[in-house]
């Protein structure tokens, strides 16, 4: 049989089956099971109406159980077995936690988790605000949104070309190296490679310190009465900010003291630690469009007269943005942030296509793939999958909770 004909047949059978199921089961419920006649007519109608939602939901629920719920338990069960199929209990998990590559994956995932949602949401919000009231804003938005239409693998291939490196003697096809070779230590090099990064890192350092101070200030304020738990959380947050600030300070020093290899093309994807950021750039590039579209709609929804009231109250554009607009769309920002967070936890294709986890870029999903389909170790692979699920679930629950709160 011609495959096209087969496909048509499948569509006809599938759609017909669906329609037939809903129509016939509904008919059965109303005419046979709880007929709306006889002495029990009223009771039967009520019962039929109580059953009907479950009747209609049944196919979806059954398929979700079969393809989503059952695999979770099956995976968990598999994760308790060794490569040869023998029961090993938590052996896979202990072995995994001792493996350096797993620790590296976990660390990298954490890094992705912090950087990508923050950067994508931040850039998205910036793009949404900046394109809001200009004539060519829609063109800009389309351009920023376009990467959403590219698959992760396709985007990875594009960026692999951007990061490509050739011998210094021949022309560079990689955009980044082509730019890099323009720097030779002159005034522009200092400006772009010392001063600009220093300003960025310094600004981030100050922002972190300021955030930490905002967290800590209420504790020092004797007038504020707060629960000890909240106080402890504030102190902890302040300490974390201090540690991050210290790390940023070290970077700031590094920006000035590093010896930069001018004139030599760099294999960007092979520079440990930083190469993770080059991979993240791909996902940020894609997700910024998503964040921008949602946040742009949310910004449009902010009542115009609250903004006008703020203008009359004397607020400048920054105050209007941060004190009037952003708080009003905070719910949407959280939903966008958590949605991207979940995408990040599942990130796999980008790493697989660009480095395959080499040079310390491994992430959990690719680690799982390695174990499952390359080493064919079903136990270890399943254990890795369970870890990813354990990380995603709380964020997912929070995300759904927030999204529902937004809808109310």
């Amino acid at each position, binding site marked *: 049989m011609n495959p096209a004909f087969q496909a048509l047949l499948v569509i006809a059978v599938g759609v017909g089956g669906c329609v037939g199921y809903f129509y016939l089961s509904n008919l059965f419920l109303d005419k046979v099971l709880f007929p709306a006649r006889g002495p029990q007519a009223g009771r039967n109608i009520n019962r039929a109406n109580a059953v009907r939602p479950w009747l209609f939901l049944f196919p979806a629920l059954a398929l979700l159980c079969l393809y989503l719920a059952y695999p979770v338990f099956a995976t968990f069960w598999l994760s308790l077995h060794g490569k040869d199929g023998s029961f090993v209990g938590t052996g896979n998990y202990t072995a995994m936690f001792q493996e350096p590559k797993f620790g590296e994956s976990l660390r990298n995932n954490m890094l992705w988790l912090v950087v990508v949602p923050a950067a994508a949401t931040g850039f998205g919000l910036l793009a949404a605000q900046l394109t809001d009231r200009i004539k060519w804003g829609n063109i800009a938005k389309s351009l920023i949104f376009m990467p959403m239409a590219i698959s992760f693998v396709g985007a990875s291939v594009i960026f692999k070309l951007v990061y490509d490196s050739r011998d210094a003697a021949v022309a560079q096809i990689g955009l980044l190296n082509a730019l890099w070779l323009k720097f030779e230590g002159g005034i522009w090099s200092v400006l772009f490679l010392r001063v600009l990064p220093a300003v960025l890192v310094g600004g981030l350092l100050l922002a972190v310190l300021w955030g930490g101070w905002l967290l800590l200030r209420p504790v020092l304020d004797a007038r504020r009465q707060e629960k000890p738990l909240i106080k402890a959380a504030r102190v902890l947050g302040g300490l974390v900010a201090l540690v991050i600030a210290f790390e940023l300070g070290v970077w700031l020093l590094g920006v000035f003291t590093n010896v930069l290899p001018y004139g030599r093309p760099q294999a960007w994807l092979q520079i440990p630690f930083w190469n993770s950021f080059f991979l993240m750039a791909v996902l940020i590039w894609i997700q910024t469009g998503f964040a921008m579209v949602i946040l742009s709609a949310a910004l449009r929804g902010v009542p115009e007269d*609250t903004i006008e009231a703020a203008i009359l109250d004397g607020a400048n554009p920054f105050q209007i943005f941060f004190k009037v607009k952003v708080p009003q769309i905070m719910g949407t920002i959280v939903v966008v942030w958590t949605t991207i967070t979940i995408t990040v936890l599942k990130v796999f294709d980008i790493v697989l296509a660009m480095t395959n986890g080499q040079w310390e870029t491994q992430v959990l999903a690719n680690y799982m793939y390695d174990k499952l389909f390359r080493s064919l170790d079903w136990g270890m692979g399943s254990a890795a999958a369970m870890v990813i699920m354990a990380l995603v679930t709380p964020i997912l629950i929070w995300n759904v909770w927030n999204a529902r709160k937004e809808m109310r």
Partner: protein
Amino acid sequence: MADLVLKDVEKAYGEVKVLKDINLDIKTGELIVFVGPSGCGKSTLLRMIAGLERITGGDFSIDGVRMNDVPPAQRGIAMVFQSYALYPHMTVRENMSFALRIAKKSQAEIDQAVDKAARVLQLTPYLDRLPKALSGGQRQRVAIGRSIVRDPKVYLFDEPLSNLDAALRVATRLEIAQLKEAMPNSTMVYVTHDQVEAMTLASRIVVLAGGGIAQVGTPLELYERPQNEFVAQFIGSPAMNLTPGEVVDTGAQTTVRLANGGIAVSAVPTQAADKGMAVNVGVRPEDLVETKGDRLFEAEVEFTEALGEVTLLHLKRTGDQPQVVAKLPGIRSELRRTQVRLTADPKKVHLFAGGKSLLYR
């Protein structure tokens, strides 16, 4: 202390001038009400005073200082929006103190101003609530409180009562009147399409129509001595009856023969040269009385609306004459389908020629 002066102010969107030749002199302590049909530009004019819309021509000044290009926050004005425009994520206290915080006032100063405003507006128990936990009337009071704390020279109100239900509207109207009384030195500009609000609150009313000012005056001036047919019909409800006629006798009193056959005598003086002039005779429904003698109108009552204190009579139209409405005191439903004969006191009969009142020639 704030005198507002608008001189030849105009507003154009591209080629279209929506407002032009706006000349207005607002004195300290006045409560000026802008009224007019929807789309007449009254809100636009208020927003131009606020600085939310650019003034495209003419000069606007407060206390002699030209304000055309001064940012809204520095004009010394505060505005109350129709939709309240409260910041939904801030408590009542934060809403009211936002402007002072932006202005970097001290905490003690802010607390004092907010507490005082809250006391005046009876909002003290609600200071830590979010706007969504307040009723419509309370939200409107917060919006007013937000402008009071800034202690502005000029208060602007953009249809502040139109989102409230009828009972609350009357109560809040009284509150605004009391507020005005309590602050005799502040100037207020108030936009509404509700003429009851305009008549009760205003020290002077500005009627806007067709992109310009139709008349400025105290509420009773507008009612008793309208400058033109538009104002005559806009102020008062139901609208003033206008009937075409021809001047037949002039002097201290003017006699007009109406196109419907009636005779109207008006206290408006005319000169001999006016004899034969085509005029519109205007009589308010409430000024019409039943008579046995000379009549303005005589027709069958097509329809009655008894409101209790008064009864509205809708007279049958004769030919292409405009519909006449009369308002008689008491309940007079029995007049339906009967013939009535109506006249009016000469002092209450207005004459218009070419749309303009003969009083203002």
